[in-house]
């Protein structure tokens, strides 16, 4: 007969909870420790957000592993009983009782003693399996600090300087520009004849919203503005190309005395009126052909007239296309105008941070020693005449300006139909090792004019425009200097 060991087994089962608890803590800390070690290495190479996410996953994984380890790995009741015996000083009584079997009187006595010991109380679960910090837990702060250091380093290295709130003046400019853009957008959205797609409308709306947003810095707004301007400029060039081709076709087709009025309108850019006149001619010609066909006139003549009708129809199509292109181009230029105005006004605001500007727009800060301290110093720097006139290798700004004005050629181009003609100057490179033939004042003014033209033609990204303007304004001699100097050596 084997004695019942129910009290012993119950006691062991109770103690097993403590064993599992410690095992969970151990598995959790071990997983966390090694995971953090790996994270501390990886954190230097991945974004902070990824590291934070990985740490969250790691903690969850460690918790799962701890639960699985505590649940799936069986606990040894003999080991637990032995641990209890060691704590209670019962000399392996419970552990032995769980293993000794048989009907021997000694074994039964052991069982009885064990049951009595188990029922008598003794150390509890907390005493037998005290909650202790796993060895890995003591080392946890080190990889955690490693992770923290990596993330802190990445955050600090990626941190942007504190953002300044835009001034009232700037906001006024931005809101005004945004309103102008919004107006254009609304008007064009209502215009059914417009071929503007929704993407363009969205771009205008987005830029307007961005200008209104106080959180957006001026340089960012200027960058967005430049992006849209570059896109519109590209489209403008395409439209101009198409328009030139259409004009060529229309001019070729608009021959004959009967189209004299239409040609005049075309030359004046009045394509719609010209188209109306051509339409009238087409209708007249169609009637005439009908009549000739009824009268059974000469077939050759009818064919000639039909040929003429085809040409007129082609001309009409070209004129209508030109009219549409004109409107498209008008829109492009109008928007570019507005963008240019906004950019100019924003760029001319007083407190623009030159260093920040250089950093953001030019890619490198100018060392403090090279930067003029004030306007007067800048003027002197730029106004001082080069003693190596015409050689083009002087490092001063003045030398470059003079070099750039040795050849000037006028060209004409029609940029916008709705506002008449405009002109621009094309500046070519200076002659090497020769004296400038232009007075400094004249050269400076020409250079400034050329720069303004270039800015006007959207060839200069908005971010650079203010810098260029400042540069050429500094080139311009003041009234006092203009009287005799600095062009003393310039003839």
């Amino acid at each position, binding site marked *: 007969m084997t004695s019942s060991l129910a009290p012993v087994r119950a006691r062991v089962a109770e103690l097993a909870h403590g064993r599992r608890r410690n095992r969970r803590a151990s598995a959790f800390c071990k997983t966390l420790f090694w995971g953090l070690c790996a994270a501390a290495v990886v954190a230097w190479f991945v974004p902070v957000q990824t590291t934070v996410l990985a740490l969250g996953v790691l903690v969850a994984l460690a918790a799962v592993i701890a639960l699985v380890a505590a649940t799936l790995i*069986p606990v040894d009741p003999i080991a637990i009983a032995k641990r209890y015996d060691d704590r209670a000083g019962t000399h392996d009584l419970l552990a032995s009782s769980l293993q000794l079997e048989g009907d021997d009187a*000694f074994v039964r*006595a052991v069982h009885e003693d064990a049951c009595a010991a188990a029922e008598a109380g003794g150390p509890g679960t907390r005493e037998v399996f005290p909650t202790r910090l796993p060895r890995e837990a003591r080392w946890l702060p080190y990889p955690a600090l490693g992770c923290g250091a990596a993330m802190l380093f990445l955050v600090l290295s990626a941190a942007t300087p504190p953002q300044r709130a835009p001034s009232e003046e700037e906001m006024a400019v931005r809101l005004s520009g945004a309103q102008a853009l919004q107006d254009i957008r609304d008007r064009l959205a209502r215009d059914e004849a417009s071929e503007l797609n929704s993407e363009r409308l969205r771009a205008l709306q987005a830029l307007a919203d961005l200008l209104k947003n106080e959180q957006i810095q001026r340089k960012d707004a200027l960058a967005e503005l430049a992006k849209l301007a570059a896109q519109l400029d590209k489209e403008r060039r395409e439209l101009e190309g198409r328009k030139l081709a259409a004009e060529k076709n229309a001019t070729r087709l608009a021959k004959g005395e009967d189209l004299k009025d239409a040609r005049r309108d075309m030359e004046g850019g009045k394509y719609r009126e010209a188209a109306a006149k051509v339409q009238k001619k087409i209708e007249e010609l169609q009637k005439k052909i009908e009549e000739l066909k009824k009268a059974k006139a000469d077939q050759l003549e009818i064919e000639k007239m039909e040929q003429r009708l085809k040409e007129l129809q082609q001309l009409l199509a070209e004129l209508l296309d030109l009219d549409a292109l004109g409107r498209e181009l008008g829109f492009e230029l109008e928007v570019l105008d507005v963008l240019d105005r906004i950019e100019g006004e924003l760029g001319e605001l007083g407190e623009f941070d030159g260093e920040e500007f250089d950093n953001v727009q030019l890619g490198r800060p100018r060392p403090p020693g090279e930067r003029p301290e004030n306007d007067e110093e800048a003027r002197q720097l730029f106004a001082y005449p080069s003693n190596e006139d015409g050689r083009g290798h002087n490092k001063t700004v003045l030398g470059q300006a003079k070099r750039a004005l040795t050849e000037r050629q006028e060209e004409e181009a029609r940029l916008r139909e709705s506002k008449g003609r405009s002109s621009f100057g094309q500046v070519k490179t200076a002659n090497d090792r020769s004296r400038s033939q232009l007075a400094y004042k004249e050269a400076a003014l020409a250079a400034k004019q050329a720069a303004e033209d270039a800015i006007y033609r959207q060839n200069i990204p908005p971010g650079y425009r203010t810098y260029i303007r400042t540069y050429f304004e500094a080139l311009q001699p003041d009234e006092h200097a203009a009287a005799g100097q600095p062009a003393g050596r310039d003839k």
Partner: protein
Amino acid sequence: MNQETGDVRVQVDAFQRDFNRLVTEIRKEIVGYDEQIRLVATALFARGHVLLEGVPGLGKTQLVKALAQAIHTRFSRIQFTPDLMPADIVGTTMVVEDAGGQKTFRFQRGPIFANVVLADEINRATPKTQSALLEAMQEHTVTSGDTTYRLEEPFFVLGTQNPLEMEGTYPLPEAQLDRFLFKLTVDYLGEDDLVEVMNRTTKAHQSGIGPVFDIDRINQMIELVRRVPVADHVVRYAVRIVRGTHPRSEVAPEPVNRFVKYGSSPRGVQAMILGAKVRALSEGRHHASCADVKAMALPALRHRLILNFEGEAEDVRTDSVVEAVLAAVPEIREGAA
């Protein structure tokens, strides 16, 4: 509690009482050496033999004599000398003339035929003489000619040897050493104990030591020891300790691998288990524990380890090796108890 377990409890209590009485009785004669006294008594009830080692004059022989007086058994003392012959120990066949003048051969029993045999300075006899004890110690029998004589139980050999004066001695061979259940080292006494020894030996002193129990009671107690159950994890612990003394085993600590040539034989496990059982009973328990095994490890294993050349050269003590094994071997391995 039923009748049977009640009887067991009574027997265990009686064992504990008698054991302690024996120890107390010996202490009347022997000052200090409590551990050695208990281990000698343990070996007696474990049906083993003890080798006592210590410098002269520490009371080794006195301890054995006190034991013999306390248990009221036949005691014989054999002083081992280089010219001692096996027949001087086991006995010899002699021609005896009876009253009628007829001569017959008769086996004259030697001093081995006793319950407690003191083999004093055992390492001074030749190996041939030492080996005369082998059969007696292991089988508890003596063979002379073609006749085997069974020795009376209990048969308990206590050998003593002197670690000094090694000249002219014959170190016990390993097989002989292995027959001893325990090897006990007898060290110098402390100041208080030495004063007490002086008081007892330089004045008129009557120890008053007398027999505590007789042979039958000893045999009963020996039988009871064999009935003590030992759990599997305790046996495994003893086995792991012995395996720990084997060089290059997976549980062997560094000192074993470095200094030990041969580890303990399975008799080492038997010695620890039997000693653990006696220790459990002497403390009134019905089962042996890992702590009992651990307590028996040093006396049971120290003479079973054979050091290699490096160990000998470094003057390594086997005690320190066994202690290293005990420190390295866990009492229980989870899932493998």
